[in-house]
């Protein structure tokens, strides 16, 4: 193999038709619309750009790291023995995701989506690595961690996992906005196309930041690299997520 191979599994993972519960989440868009902060194409564009630069970038880096960890634990047989102790790394990486998500509503949404994705991925790409992740984080892995692990097991590279995570960070809210505001779906896809360079940048940042226990030369550890992953926060998304949880009328879980 000289040229990097193209991985069709990436398309399956990124497709909104992947039956993993994503359709029930708006990534804060429903709350932003309810607050009047997103009301048309320009405000949606600004929302998506900000989301991608913050939680989208963080998700991309976590997903890339999870992908690298999945690949290295599959290769080295450290996926954990089927009945015994959980394999090293997953709980630590998941805790890094939790420390970057201040809002409990967002943590819960992330864990629910991660749990649903892992359930689906384990049936599509059965692997002791995914079983190990489910055991290591019984409350449900954060979504970027589950996504990256699934990508790794499906044979994707860390950069591809990062791209899928960044893509999911903007397509979920975009679809929700089409439904909730009745925006022209073609115009909204145009906004997404405009974000393509930012998506690619997030993917390459993610791939550059990814580390697995196998790839980090001592004395550094994978955990010390994960600690330094980007942590861009979006205070407005935090406030919107908490407000959404308390809204009487809502279509989306988050």
């Amino acid at each position, binding site marked *: 193999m000289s040229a990097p191979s193209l991985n069709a599994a990436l398309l399956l993972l990124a497709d909104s038709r992947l039956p993993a519960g994503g359709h029930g989440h708006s990534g*804060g868009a429903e709350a*932003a619309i309810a*607050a009047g*902060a*997103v009301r048309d194409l320009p*405000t949606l564009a*600004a*929302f*998506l*750009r*900000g*989301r991608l*630069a*913050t939680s989208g970038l963080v998700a991309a880096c976590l997903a890339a790291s999870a992908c690298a960890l999945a690949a290295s634990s599959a290769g080295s047989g450290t996926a954990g023995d089927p009945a015994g102790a959980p394999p090293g790394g997953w709980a630590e990486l998941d*805790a*890094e995701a*939790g*420390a*970057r*998500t*201040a*809002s*409990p*509503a967002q*943590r819960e949404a992330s864990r629910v989506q991660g749990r649903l994705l892992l359930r689906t991925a384990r049936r599509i790409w059965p692997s002791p690595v995914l079983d190990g992740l489910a055991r290591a984080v019984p409350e449900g892995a954060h979504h970027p961690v589950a996504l990256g692990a699934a990508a790794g097991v499906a044979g994707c590279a860390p950069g591809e996992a990062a791209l899928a995570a960044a893509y999911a960070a903007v397509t979920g809210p975009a679809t929700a906005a089409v439904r909730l505001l009745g925006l022209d779906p073609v115009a909204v896809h145009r906004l997404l196309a405009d974000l393509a360079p930012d998506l690619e940048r997030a993917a390459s940042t993610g791939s550059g930041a990814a580390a697995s226990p196998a790839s980090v030369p001592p004395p550094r550890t994978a955990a010390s690299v994960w*600690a330094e992953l*980007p*942590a*861009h*926060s*979006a*205070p*407005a*998304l*935090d*406030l*919107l997520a*908490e*407000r959404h*949880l*308390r809204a009487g009328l809502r279509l989306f879980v988050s």
Partner: protein
Amino acid sequence: MTARAVLATAPGPGGRTVLATMRSAPPITLRRTGPGQVYLVATAAGPLGGDDLALDIDVAPGTALDVRSVASTLVLPGPRPGSAPEESSMTITARIGAGASLRFAPEPTVLAAGCRHRMTVRLELAPDARVLWREEIVFGRYGEAPGRCRTRFDAVVGGRPLLRQEFTVGDPAIDASPAVYGDARCVGGTLITGPPGTAGSGSLLAGEAVIGDGWAVLPLAGPGVLVSALAPDAAGLRRRLERGETAALPR
């Protein structure tokens, strides 16, 4: 200018806290104003572009420290007008030992037009350390577009990550995003940790988030809460943070 100020406590007689080290490094000048209480006093303008400033805080086990400042910090571009501004940086490292408590609540940092600033905070907490750490950032003086600023905040409790946050200010496409700061011109947060029910500053609210107008008390994944707030101006930001702090620490 490169400067590194150091502040360290030690247990004194009768359970009191003494300041074992208090080393000012202009422009960061430290002034003791009471037992276990220190004011940060700026003795020069800035930070200015090119400045590399650091403050190390060590709160010894069982001691208590209260750090404040007299005035807000105005971050200015470097002294070389015309050329691309150099970055200024401020790095604060704090270790808070077992049973120790730290209150760190200086006045806000104001990002003047044209500045390029980096703020790094690293907190290492013992599992039962009590901390109230407030940070406020104001996007430019009145009517002014802010320069650029990147902040990174890492709080680690007993070696486990509690909160990691970065803010980027000064990219107009992101600043005004309804997902990031929306209409706000100020962003702030107060990290509060400590065992629930400890005396002194009341008990730490556990469990559910509390939300108000422009603020929220967010229970973190680890042992602590973050009061997060956005506001149109500095006075409003302080009010919102204080409201959240009160909700988090009912008297």
